[in-house]
């Protein structure tokens, strides 16, 4: 086992961080990697207007009380993050799938009316998951 002194560790970490810092791509990657981990955290980052997502999600759950369970919603939303691990739950990947699955929903008529708005099931459920899992 190689012993690394506290001073050497800090130096190495600083160099590593310095190597990443000038790269915007690198920063974004680091940022996303740190944020990743769960579908909920990805959705939390996608929905910047969290309050709106929560309200919409609650309205959806009023119409579909049977789905008022995070596990049920995760099951319905499994295609948003088809694989386990942080790669699959990176916000940009989830966002891409959310968009394409919602469009697919619309194409197949899988829509829900919330206060008159015609929304795709996937996007409405994503809001519902945010509503259920946000503090």
């Amino acid at each position, binding site marked *: 086992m190689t012993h690394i002194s506290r001073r050497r560790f800090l130096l190495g970490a600083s160099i590593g961080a310095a190597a990443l810092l000038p790269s915007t791509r690198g920063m974004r990657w680091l940022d996303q990697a740190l944020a990743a981990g769960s579908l909920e955290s990805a959705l939390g980052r996608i929905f910047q207007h969290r309050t709106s997502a929560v309200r919409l999600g609650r309205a959806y759950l009023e119409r579909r009380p049977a789905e008022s369970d995070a596990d049920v919603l995760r099951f319905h939303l499994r295609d948003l993050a088809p694989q386990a691990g942080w790669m699959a739950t990176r916000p940009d990947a989830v966002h891409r799938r959310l968009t394409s699955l*919602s469009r697919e929903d*619309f*194409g197949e*008529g899988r*829509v829900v*009316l919330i206060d*008159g*708005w*015609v*929304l795709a099931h996937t996007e409405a459920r994503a809001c519902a998951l945010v509503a259920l899992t946000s503090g």
Partner: protein
Amino acid sequence: VFVDARTVTEADIVDSDVCIVGGGAAGIALAVEMIGTPVRVGLLESGGMQFDAQTQDLYAGGQDGLRYFPLDASRLRYFGGSTNHWGGMSRPFDAEDFQERGEVGDAWPISISDVEPYYARAGSVCGVAEDAWSVGYWNEGSRHATLPLRERFVTRVAQQVPRAARNFGARFERDLERAENVIVYLHANAVGIETDDDVRNVTLIRVATLEGQRFSVAGRHFVLAAGGIENPRLLLASTSRRPNGLGNDHDQVGRYFTEHPRFEAASIAPTGRFPVGFYTVHHARGVSIQGYVGLGDELKREEGLADVQLRLRPVYERSYAEARNSDAVESFQRLARLRSRGVDQISQDVVNILEDLSRWQDTMVAGAPLPIPHPATIEALLSSNGEERSALASMLFGDIGVFGWGRLTDSVPIEEVLVTARVTPVPNPESRITLSMERDALGAPRSHLHWRLSRIDKRSILRTLELFGAELGHAGLGRLGILINDDEDDWPDDTAGGYHHMGTTRMSADPRHGVVDAECRVHGIDNLYVAGSSIFADGGSGTPTLTLVALTLRLADHLSQRLERNA
């Protein structure tokens, strides 16, 4: 020839081969079609050449049911009839309109092939620029694209007749004045229809003027062309041989009154660029056109829905709307018309630019710089001297430049698109015209409208919006929010119609289901015909005027052939 009925006696009235009641779109089209033929035509028009309040009051009547325009405010009672306020939007009916559509539409006893040969002629009578209705044709000629929707949805195109051509009275006055075989009696109100003893033939029409003259007009054939409310009113009021009115043995006269109810029904929040220009009134191939969206026939049948048209209207920034509608802009347009009389150079340049801009206006959307100069700029320009004009002109070109850039890059965002829904209601026998207890100045019973819609009409609108909303989401265009409630018995307060009075003497093969037969002849009465949108079996997906004129021209052919055979 025009004759003022207030100045004639019964001895002056000439018998006619065809006596027409009503000088609106149908009556005038029929009379004009017969100019120069051996057929002697008499046309009875209630009004004169101008609006008159006392004459207009003969239209007043009662109403119940859904809110509707006052009956004396939804049509015009003088020569030219309601073409005097016609909006000019024209589109023929589709083949499907004439077919049986289960719960949502009754079959006509004729098909599109009976009417189609008359549409081109009807178009020229109505002032329609081109006998072309395919969306591909207009899309190709338009600078705007249609929405990228799947085939289950259709875009239909209506042409707008130029304002100057819309008024049939003004357009055909001279032709009728010169016609030797046509006499137009002005101020002549038909107040009753008399028949022979067995009610097989009409013998004369009783006429009254507001000044007190009474006389009768005899003829070989009679055509009621007085509109969707007056046609049934006159039949119902003609009780000397039939207590329930003429042609009403099966209690059908006045039933199935319909309109094209419309209201703001939804709002679209675009997710990006939303190509709405094709759906606003704009020019393509030199013609004013407008597209609207609807469900394809297959989808409508699959879902069992009535026809619903969706019209799209981008919401403009307030300053843009103000500029566009301002008096100053109007005065500039007037200036444009003065161009040929010679104005100074700078004004000429501005006029040229404005003319160019007027072609771009419909592409403007909220958040963009003004497509036309701000009214204050125009006002200043108009009142300025030559030197000041140069400075102001640069301001003007500045606006134009910024607008041009926005248009060029197509990057101007839309704030909101409002959706107006127009439904073709399912024929409803309880929606009807009856006679009121009240009487008008001529002693005739006033009409009473019982305006009803069916639950399936509202359901059709809601479902069409839902399907359209899903389609917009699928196309990545935006999200649609429905603005109306889902109570199928509750209609929005702003429900209005298009002043389209239809269905009250509907065409049917069976006298138990309608009033006129396939030849527009009242069931059971050999020489009494009806022309106009009151004969429509339902409202159809097009606009009424073009089709009612086409059917009138078909009737003209029928009458000419019949008169020729019997000559």
